[in-house]
């Protein structure tokens, strides 16, 4: 191996770039995150809600954004582009151009005064041009960094030399008209690309009248309309008459699955996007009539089908199988849709508004970009990657994730990001990091009388423009235990932070209260500041007198001042009772246990071992390889068996990997960094104990064994897996072999298994194409409910259709029927009858072979393992991740991760990406010698505990246990997250939450003199 490097470059700061940066930074690497726009966040901030949980997109994203911005190992370069990458992996020299922002980020306090006064209005791209922004602005409300930037193209001073209003109103003197572009040179070991995707622009496309008809909008515009922080404040009205639309049509596949515009791929996310928007719309406007015009509904992800079914049953969304051929606008602004049903019948329907579900496409500048970076693109201008190396570009040392190499939804992007990190590790120096010792020179304040310093912030005029700040500071000065009180212009500026440290020394302060903005963004900064002069960081309290006072009561200055005084008094009351808290270190032991030696388990093991960690793989079968042993073909021509043999060889040869086959897990005890597992060989009964720091669950899944469609009664009815074996051996039924019927969704998407098994459509088509190679004249009939060849898989669907195969859509109420011609002879030929909606009648096929695409079943053993690991399963028996969107391979239980089929049905490339992601997430822990537990956790007064164990049931993290000898509860500091649910449930008053203790909170409730 060549040179390794401590630094790494991430290009693009959408959710994929953010996730990659966080993982790398947690492994102790120096990350440079380069982003073209003025903020990190990418596409997610534009979304209102996310499917299938309807989580608020911004709420789930913003903690990751601030973590990324605050992380000491991450340097964010916004408004920056990568210009060149020279050199070799391990030693790349990269040139970055950082554009002039014209606002000094160190001085700007994001008060927004400049934007208010700026006379130049321009289209707001973030709000899809549905609203205007100013030439000086911040990209969106929660932008990070929050500082403003000037739009060079539109600023009056920068273009015409007049105006300068922003400079005049800026009290922080942050405007810098002479700012220039900067060139930065970086030496890095690897590059992770995550430049994202664009949305299809439907101007002039089809006969949909986008931009001609006022009430036709794109799905992204509609998303902004639905958003509570969007241009309409979440009250959807149509553009023509500002009335709430009572009927809405979604048109799917606008710019997707369309060879005529060179986009013969599926954008993967738009079906779910439309379902989500229809559900949210119905929540806004209850009596809305919604129809979704589609070719297929591709709800192929985990729990997506349940969401789809819910949209029909609970929200009465109508799904119409049809391509809309024309839209005309009526005089009242309504839109008349002309569409053709499957049977050829032409229909018309009027809607008050139309949403075009626009597809995802490669970024506009991809060809130039790829040429500069020396990476290859596919024919749709997405970054090219290989089915067995889905995160790798054509250039070694440069990896790809997110939408850059094909349409993806959020969790897939997050998975790819973590996976790309695992790939890059071989060119990076990942070492076990020491923990930074906390509080070594901390002043002991226990037993000292509280000496509180209060600082009241003007925030320019943001607070002082409404609240009488001086008056508040004077009021605070007279409160008990307040030794010092003053008002300051900008509490968060570097000058003030220095001042606060001086005052602590000067007045011997041992508690600090800052009345300013919100602790959610600024508490960490102030805590770090007081820690610098030896105060425990938890001896700090904030009063939020801006976001929750001056900004919310702008027309009531007196009442706002009175409220500010109260809030400061409550803050002082809490501060008085604060005590120093210690974040206890939890030692993290090295090594990982991987459960399951299928492709996912082995791939994860190799990725963890690549970072120098020991890995133990436990496999209950006699041979490794799992389901991959039964896969012989890939539609792209790659050889799965070669992949399997290569992987097995690497595992066998790796000195740090120990594979235990024919072995089961007996017991797992412990927690993150400190697991202890005993395993037993099924044959020799020999037991082994393993200590390890992390666990990766890769137990796989089974092919469903059906009783439907004469399976087991006829030798001519086989599953797709069995059929693949026939294709390999070219061993088909004897005699005439003319007609093959495939039946999709056998066991999937119906009662008991209300999920899509995801891989079967592509598998059926793949096997169909293989059959056509061997027996060109065989007729293939595929009975399906929707064909779900998402992403670039669409091409194979087209290929098989071009070869004359027939696709027959059936409904679950009217499944195809399979009958033996001679019911006494299992070798007898078969009759398959099915209703064909295109011919509008029943057809009967004389079948020589029937191939069933059976569902993927969760393992029954999952249940036992889940209990051992204290992790949940979903209703279908698959492992349930910590967060379906942003923590797709983590569990809420730290140090335990999941990948492959154990998590849910997925294809080979997706399993590879996910197992690498699980490895990468495990490495974020394993690369540390210790982690710090949270300071604000539960403590027990055992003298009061009756051992009732009510708290044990309440705890969502299994952090509480009853000590069997003492019969009192014990808190595991490593597991407690500090929610306080146990404290509120304790009947004996034995539990308390540090930092939010009963005493502290009661002091706050009691602080004000109200009577």
């Amino acid at each position, binding site marked *: 191996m060549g040179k390794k490097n401590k630094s790494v470059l991430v290009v693009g700061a959408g959710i994929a770039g953010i996730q990659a940066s966080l993982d790398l930074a947690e492994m102790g690497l120096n990350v440079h995150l380069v982003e073209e726009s003025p903020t990190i966040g990418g596409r997610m901030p534009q979304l209102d809600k996310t499917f299938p949980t309807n989580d608020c997109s911004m709420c789930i994203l913003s903690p990751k954004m601030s973590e990324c911005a605050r992380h000491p190992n991450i340097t964010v370069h916004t408004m920056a582009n990568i210009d060149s990458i020279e050199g070799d992996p391990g030693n790349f020299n990269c040139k970055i151009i950082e554009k002039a922002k014209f606002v000094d980020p160190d001085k700007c306090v994001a008060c927004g005064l400049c934007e208010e006064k700026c006379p130049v209005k321009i289209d707001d791209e973030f709000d899809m041009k549905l609203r205007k922004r100013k030439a000086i602005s911040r990209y969106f409300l929660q932008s990070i960094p929050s500082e403003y930037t000037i739009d060079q193209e539109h600023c009056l001073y920068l273009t015409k030399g007049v105006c300068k209003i922003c400079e005049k109103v800026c009290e922080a003197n942050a405007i810098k008209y002479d700012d220039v572009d900067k060139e930065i040179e970086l030496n890095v070991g690897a590059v992770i690309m995550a430049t994202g995707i664009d949305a299809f622009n439907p101007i002039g496309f089809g006969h949909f009248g986008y931009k001609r008809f006022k009430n036709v909008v794109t799905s992204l515009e509609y998303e902004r309309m639905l958003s509570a922080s969007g241009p309409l404040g979440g009250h959807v009205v149509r553009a023509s008459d500002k009335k709430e639309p009572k009927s809405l049509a979604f048109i799917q596949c606008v710019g997707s699955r369309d060879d005529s515009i060179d986009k013969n791929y599926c954008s993967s996310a738009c079906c779910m996007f439309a379902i989500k928007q229809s559900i949210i719309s119905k929540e806004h406007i209850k009596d809305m009539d919604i129809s979704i015009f589609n070719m297929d509904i591709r709800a192929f992800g985990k729990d997506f089908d349940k969401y789809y079914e819910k949209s029909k049953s609970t929200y009465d969304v109508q799904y119409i199988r049809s391509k809309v051929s024309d839209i005309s606008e009526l005089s009242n602004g309504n839109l008349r849709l002309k569409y053709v049903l499957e049977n050829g019948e032409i229909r018309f329907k009027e809607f008050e508004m139309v949403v075009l579900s626009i597809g995802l496409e490669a970024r506009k500048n991809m060809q130039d970009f790829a040429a500069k970076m020396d990476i290859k693109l596919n024919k749709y201008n997405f970054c090219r990657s290989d089915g067995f190396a889905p995160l790798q570009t054509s250039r070694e040392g440069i990896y790809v994730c997110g939408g850059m190499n094909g349409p993806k939804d959020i969790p897939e992007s997050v998975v790819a990001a973590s996976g790309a990190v695992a790939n890059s590790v071989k060119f990076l120096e990942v070492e076990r990091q020491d923990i930074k010792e906390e509080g070594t020179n901390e002043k002991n304040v226990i037993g000292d009388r509280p000496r509180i310093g209060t600082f009241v912030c003007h925030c320019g005029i943001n607070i002082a423009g409404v609240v009488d700040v001086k008056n508040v500071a004077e009021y605070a000065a007279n409160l008990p235990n307040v030794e010092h009180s003053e008002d300051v212009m900008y509490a968060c500026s570097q000058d003030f932070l220095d001042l606060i440290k001086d005052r602590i020394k000067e007045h011997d302060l041992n508690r600090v209260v800052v009345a300013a903005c919100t602790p959610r963004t600024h508490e960490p900064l102030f805590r770090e500041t007081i820690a610098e002069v030896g105060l425990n960081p938890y001896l700090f309290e904030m009063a939020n007198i801006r*976001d929750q006072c001056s900004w919310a009561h702008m027309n009531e200055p007196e009442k706002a001042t009175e409220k500010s005084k109260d809030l400061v008094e409550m803050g002082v009351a809490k501060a008085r009772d604060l005590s120093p808290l210690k974040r206890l270190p939890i030692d993290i032991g090295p090594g990982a246990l991987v459960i399951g030696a299928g492709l996912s388990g082995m791939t994860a093991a190799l990725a963890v071992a690549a970072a120098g960690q020991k890995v133990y793989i436990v496999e209950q079968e006699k041979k490794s390889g799992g389901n991959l042993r039964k896969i012989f073909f890939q539609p792209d021509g790659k050889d799965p068996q070669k992949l399997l043999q290569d992987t097995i060889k690497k595992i066998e040869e790796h000195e740090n990997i120990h594979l235990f086959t024919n072995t089961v897990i007996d017991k797992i005890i412990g927690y993150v960094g400190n697991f202890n597992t005993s395993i037993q060989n099924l044959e020799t009964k020999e037991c082994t104990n393993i200590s390890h720091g992390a666990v990766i669950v890769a137990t796989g899944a089974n092919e469903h064994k059906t009783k439907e469609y004469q399976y087991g009664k006829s030798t001519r009815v086989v599953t797709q897996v069995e059929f693949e074996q026939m294709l390999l051996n070219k061993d088909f039924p004897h005699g005439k072999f003319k007609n093959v019927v495939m039946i999709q969704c056998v066991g999937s998407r119906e009662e008991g298994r209300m999920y899509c098994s995801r891989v079967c459509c592509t598998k059926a088509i793949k096997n169909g194409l293989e059959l056509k190679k061997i027996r060109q004249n065989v007729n293939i009939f595929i009975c399906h409910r929707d064909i779900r060849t998402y992403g670039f898989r669409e091409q194979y669907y087209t290929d098989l259709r071009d070869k004359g195969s027939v696709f027959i859509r059936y409904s679950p109420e009217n499944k195809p029927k399979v009958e033996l011609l001679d019911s006494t002879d299992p070798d007898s030929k078969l009759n398959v009858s099915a209703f064909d909606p295109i011919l509008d009648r029943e057809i009967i096929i004389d079948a020589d072979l029937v191939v069933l695409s059976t569902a993927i079943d969760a393992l029954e053993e999952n249940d036992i393992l889940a209990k051992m690991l204290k992790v949940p399963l979903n209703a279908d028996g698959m492992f349930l991740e910590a967060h379906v969107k942003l923590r797709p391979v983590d569990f809420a239980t730290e140090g335990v991760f999941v990948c492959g089929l154990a998590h849910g049905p997925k294809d080979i490339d997706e399993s590879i990406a996910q197992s690498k992601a699980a490895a990468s997430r495990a490495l974020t822990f394993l690369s540390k010698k210790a982690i710090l537990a949270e300071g604000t956790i539960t403590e027990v007064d055992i003298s009061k505990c009756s051992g009732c164990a009510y708290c044990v049931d309440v705890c969502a993290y299994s952090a509480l246990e009853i000590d069997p000898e003492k019969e009192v509860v014990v808190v595991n500091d490593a597991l407690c997250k500090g929610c*306080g649910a146990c404290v*509120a449930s304790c009947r004996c008053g034995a539990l308390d939450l540090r930092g939010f203790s009963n005493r502290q909170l*009661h002091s706050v409730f009691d602080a*004000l003199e*109200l009577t």
Partner: protein
Amino acid sequence: MSDWQPKILAILCNWCSYAGADLAGVSRLQYPPNIRVVRIPCSGRVDPLFIMKAFQTGYDGVLVSGCHPGDCHYLSGNYFARRKFAVIKPLMEFIGLEPDRLQFSWVSAGEGERFSEVVTKVTKDIQKIGPITKMVKGV
């Protein structure tokens, strides 16, 4: 009575409702200045005693707000909160306190507007009920 301004204690969870209150401010949505906010990690932290303590101090009303059911940052805290809330209102009635002095809501971090609406409504409701006298210390 119409000029009378109630004092209301708002106990907000850190991850959803407190963030929603911040967003209301950032969006400059205006609401009555009658609430005094206490930030706690999770609505599951709320002990019914907190609410009684607030009435005893002299707050005319109490608002407790957490994440929407299913959205709890701590997985299930708001469900426990909801169960406690179900029993505390009858208790208030039993001791002769108007149950509407105590209100619960679910406000997400993205619902600045909802937060301002909730506060406006709660303030109006409490205004209608009038000043608290029962239970208050020193009265």
